[in-house]
Structures are given as C-alpha cells and as structure tokens.
C-alpha cells in the first residue's frame, strides 16, 4: 500500500515537472546548433554570433567547434549526418562537398528559400559549386582562391616586377637570395603535405600549363597528358628542395605562411585570409611590405587559381530549419560579409560587397581580384570527390617526393583508378 502511494506521488511529481518544463520551453528561444571549425580570427566570429543574438532574440545559436582540417571536419560532419543526427542544424561545407551532401540527402535543398534571383547576387563560381541536379544546397559564406603573395620591398630593391611565369619566379628568387646572402631565405613557400591542400596547389601548376584532371568537354581522365606530367615534374625538380625548402612536403597553410611572415621566403601561395595575418605587425615581421597578385603561369598559358571557400548548409533532418535559415541569412548578408571581409580578410561571395567603398578602402586588392575570383576553377564536381582526391593526393605526393619516380607511369595508374571511381559515381545517374 505504501509503495503504491509513493509511486503515485512520484508519478505526480514527474508529471508536474514535465508541465513546468513544457511551459518554460514555450518562452525560451529555439536553440540551433552550428557545427563549425576554429577560425583564424575567432573574435570576429564571436562578435557576429552576439550580433545575431541581439537582432534575433527568438533564436539561440549553440556553436560546436570541430577540427580545423577540412578532411577531419568532413569525417565528423558526414558521420553525424549519415546517422541522421538531429543535434546539428547548420554546418559548414568546403566548396568540394555540396554534390556529395546533396546526393546523399544530408543537406536540405534550399531552392525555395534561396531562389535564383537571390543566387544571382552572388559570384557564379561558388553558386555553381553549391548546385546539384537543379537544386541548391548551400549558401556561400566566403570565397577562396589561390593567390600569389610576394615581398614588395625585396622585388623593388632588385628592380623586379612580380613574376609572370614560374620560371621567372625561380630566376628572380635566385638573384635575390644571392644578393641577400641569407642562408635562411628561400624563394617559395606553399602547401605540399599529403592532404587536400596538395590537390589545390598542384592543380594550379597543372592548369597554368594547360592541363587538367578531367577534360571538361569529353569527360575523359587526362591526368597522363604531357602538360600535366611536365607541370608535376617542374614542381618535383625546381620547387621541392630547390626554390622551396624540402620541409614544405609536410606543410599545410599555417606552416607555409609562418615561413613567409618570418622573412624566410620571397614568394608565397595562399588563400585570401593570409593578407590579414601577414599584415598584422603583432604576428608578422613583414607587415606592410607585401604585394599580392595572380599566380604565375607556364609560358603562354592563362593564370589559374583553385576555387576554395566555405558554404553554410542545413541538416535535412534538422528540427529547426526555419531558425537555421534565419541564421544563415544573417551570416551571408551584405553587412556580415562586409565585417568578415574587413576584419578577417575573407573574400566576400556577394557581388555588392566588392563595390562597398569602406571595404575597398581597407582591402584595395579585392577589387583587382574580382575577375580572378570569378574565374577561379573548381576541383572536379562529383559526389565521389573525396575518393578522387585521395587518389590525387597519393599521386602528387609520391611524384614530388621521389626524384627517381616515373611520373607518367604513376599518372597512368592513377587515371585508371580515378576512372573506376568516376564510373561508380555515374552509375547513380542511370
């Protein structure tokens, strides 16, 4: 009898607690979870989240920070989305992921919220990257493209103009290094570790020699063409251990940028964000002595940069798609992009920001780059891109590390492997 009484009392208490919880929930703002990675300027992002909270009292954003590396972040996001984990509402996508996320049904189709006339306010490259089979699955947050940074002061001292070709970069660098007589100074610094960045850097060499991985017209894998082999061999024979220290084989963006801002490299390839870091006197020894321009080419070819950048996507199984969209709309608004451009030197994806006088005053180079940003080339757009990338990373790393390797034979083997993967990807379209 006593037990029964206790049970009833207990049950009643639980019920009333639930009711209280229910009532208070109605007043509490909806919470959405934004899965991000640690940015280079966390204070800028924090300020933006606070601004969003001030302007949208009905929504609270909980920020979860994932790994900085794109590949590791991809592993975490895909594992959570694959399991239909509802605890993520908004996530970031690297520019190479939307086809995969769209095809797998992880990212919500945003066509109704993000119609074509709104898409037209953004640059074409990132919009293409976010489109898949007629839908749009992400809103571009900021844009990346490979840029060529150089020591303005050193070039001036030796009466050089920024090099137009890779060969010219090497010869100019040799003269400067001889003249400076500094054993710690190198000609070039970039990212050659076996990771996604290696594909970006190598593709720029290959494109600027007229090569490609997949022929845009025929869809054939053309990795074993002589333009590709020559570009790869140039990197192996003239860059690694020559123009750049051998250590670059283990460098991602931060290490290669360190070399540049510590006055140890004349030329440097990086994304737009490097401008803010390299010009920050607290972090950089070369603040104010930097120039930036398009990457060099091989003789007679067009300059090419790899399209990079990040997009916001919404989890298809999110319980708060409306609030998530509210957050994305805020994060990709003209005002937010202006703040990100001026305070974190992230290149905007909205055309209008490039015309803003305040932005142009602080970031004069943005305007010069607009054509280059518009023309930045995407890596192969495919739902199986992660697999293609692993093959490319393996090929490039092996080719540039080992001087005695037969690049064209490796290229052939890699082509065959990529062809198999691409076939897998096309099976779904039939």
């Amino acid at each position: 009898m006593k037990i029964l009484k206790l049970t009833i009392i207990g049950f009643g208490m639980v019920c009333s607690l639930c009711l209280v919880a229910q009532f208070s929930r109605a007043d509490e703002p909806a919470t959405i979870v934004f899965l991000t990675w640690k940015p280079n300027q966390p204070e800028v992002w924090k300020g933006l989240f606070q601004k969003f909270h001030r302007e949208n009292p009905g929504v609270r954003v909980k920020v979860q920070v994932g790994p900085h590396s794109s590949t590791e972040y991809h592993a975490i996001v895909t594992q959570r989305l694959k399991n239909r984990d509802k605890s993520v509402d908004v996530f970031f996508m690297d520019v190479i992921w939307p086809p995969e996320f769209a095809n797998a049904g992880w990212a919500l189709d945003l066509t109704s919220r993000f119609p074509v006339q709104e898409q037209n306010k953004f640059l074409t490259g990132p919009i293409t990257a976010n489109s898949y089979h007629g839908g749009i699955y992400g809103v571009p947050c900021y844009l990346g493209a490979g840029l060529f940074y150089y020591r303005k002061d050193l070039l001036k001292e030796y009466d050089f103009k920024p090099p137009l070709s890779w060969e010219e970069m090497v010869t100019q660098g040799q003269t400067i290094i001889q003249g400076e007589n500094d054993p710690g100074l190198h000609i070039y610094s970039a990212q050659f570790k076996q990771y996604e960045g290696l594909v970006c850097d190598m593709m720029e060499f290959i494109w600027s020699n007229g090569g490609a991985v997949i022929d845009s017209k025929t869809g054939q894998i053309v990795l074993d063409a002589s333009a590709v082999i020559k570009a790869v061999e140039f990197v192996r024979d003239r860059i690694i251990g020559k123009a750049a220290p051998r250590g670059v084989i283990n460098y991602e963006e931060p290490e290669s940028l360190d070399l540049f801002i510590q006055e140890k490299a004349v030329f440097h390839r990086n994304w737009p964000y490097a401008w803010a870091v390299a010009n920050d006197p607290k972090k950089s020894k070369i603040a104010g002595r930097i120039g930036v321009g398009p990457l060099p080419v091989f003789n007679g070819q067009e300059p090419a940069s790899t399209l990079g950048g990040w997009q916001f996507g919404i989890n298809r199984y999110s319980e708060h798609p409306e609030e998530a969209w509210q957050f994305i709309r805020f994060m990709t608004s003209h005002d937010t992009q202006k703040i990100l451009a001026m305070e974190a030197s992230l290149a905007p994806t909205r055309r209008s920001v490039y015309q803003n006088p305040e932005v142009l005053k602080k970031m004069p180079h943005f305007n010069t780059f607009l054509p280059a940003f518009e023309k930045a080339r995407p890596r192969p757009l495919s739902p199986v891109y992660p697999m293609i990338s692993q093959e490319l990373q393996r090929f490039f790393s092996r080719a540039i590390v080992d001087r005695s390797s037969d690049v064209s034979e490796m290229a052939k083997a890699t082509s065959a492997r990529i062809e198999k993967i691409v076939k897998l990807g096309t099976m779904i379209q039939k």
Partner: protein
Amino acid sequence: MTRKDQSFFLTLLVPVILVLLLFIAAPIGQSIFLSFHRIIIGLPQLKTPFVGLDNYQQLLTDPVARHSFWITIIFVATTTFFELLIGLLLALMINQHFPGRGALRACILIPWAIPTVVAAQMWRFLLNDAYGMVNYAVFGSETSHYIPWLAQPATALVAIIIADIWKTSSFAALLILAGLQVIPEEIYQAAKVDGAVVWRRFWHITWPLIRPALLVALLFRTIDAFRVFDIAFVMTQGGPADATNVLQLYGYKKMFVEGWMGYGSTISVCIFIMVLSLAIIYVRMVGRRLLEASV
C-alpha cells in the same frame, strides 16, 4: 558446490557476458557484416548490395594496401624489438637498490602516462624542420643544414618508430620489472657465494626467470603495435608519399574520409584476423612456458 550455488554463479556472470556481447562481439560482427557489402555513404542510391568476398579480393590486389601492410610490419618489428630491449634495460636498472629509486620508477612511467596524441604532437614539434629541438641539437645554429625529418619518407617512418619506442618502452619495463621482482634475492646471494660474476648471474638466473614476463610483454607490444594509428595520424597523416600510411590509417581514410564503409571494414577485419592469429600463437607459446616456469 550445490546446484543452487552453480546457478547463482551463472547469474552473476550474466552482466559480464552481456557487456562483452554488446561492446565486443556486436561491433566485430557488424564489421564483418559490413565487409561483405558494398557501402558508399556518399552514394546511397547504390543501396548496400551483398558482394560476397569482392572486397577481400580487391584488398589482395590493392597496391596501396600491400604497401601499408609492409609499412606496418616494419613498424611492428622494429618498435617491438627496441621496446623490449630498452624495457629490459630500464627494468634491470630500476630493480637495483639506490637512493631515489621510487622517484625514478615514477619518472620512467611518464612517457607512457602521456596521452599518445600529446606525445605525438610533442615529437612533431621536436622534429620540426625550422625550429625543432632535434635539429638544433644536431646542427646548432647552422639552420641551412636542418633536416626536414617528417618530410622525407625514410626519416618520417623512423620518426614515428622512435616516437613509439620512446612512449611505450616504459610499459614493457613495467611488465618486465614485475617479472624481476618475483626472483628471490637468496638465489643471487647463493650464486655470489659460488663466485658467479654479474654476467653469469644474469644469464643463468635472471634471463630464464624473466622469460615468461618478457613473452607477456612481447605479446602486448606486438598486438598493440599492429593497431598503431594515433602516432601516424598526428605526426604525418600517412604522408609523405604514403611512407607512414599504416594499415589502420588506410582503413580509417577509406571508411571515414572516402566514406567507403564496406572496404574500410574489410581492412579492419583483416587487421583483426592478423592480430587474433598472432594472439593465439603467442598465448599458446606463452601459456605453455608460463606453466612450465611456474611448475
């Protein structure tokens, strides 16, 4: 033991068995199940067809997997050998009586107590090509001679091997020390009286008596080394040119980076089978020796 007792004991075992089933048997079964299917998480339209032994066949002809296999074998052989050797020396040392022995014993365990990720990150800094202490120790301020240890295939592999030896030798030392401590002091005193010198005392008393402990350490270390992942993941991510792409890392990349669940599971299952067969061989060997030693 009465019948009632027996059933009572069996009831007590139920939770343990349930936990083992849930956390060990189920994941292994799941992996084996996945390895017989073609599952690509980015392409759900392909469904998850049963492909029999296709994945295993593919693995046998996969040159990257073969390369990773040999890298793993080199890693296992060298780390296990040096860890046991250094572990033995450390154990002999801290088994002596000298002031501060307790403190030293604790110190020796520090590398083992540091989380692997932290230790690997520390080694990455030590071996850095621009400001690493290793380069400074070898070349001083001659920065132009600095060697990018982690950027050359051969030295990168040696680097992760050294990092692992540094980290786990003390674990081997701990196991061997336990073996040393059960040897009664009287045997040594008797040998001394008989005029046996240090070397003879080691060879005829210590060595045969710690062999079982050494074998246990060998078992633990080989099996553990086979499953190496974190050191390579943090220090090199498998690069350069796949020089440190150990099998577990390759499987991880297939499964989590490329989303190739079936094939990735196949790699895990193969590592599992290799480790399991090693364990069976060892346990049979060690088990017999242990019994012989204790008789």
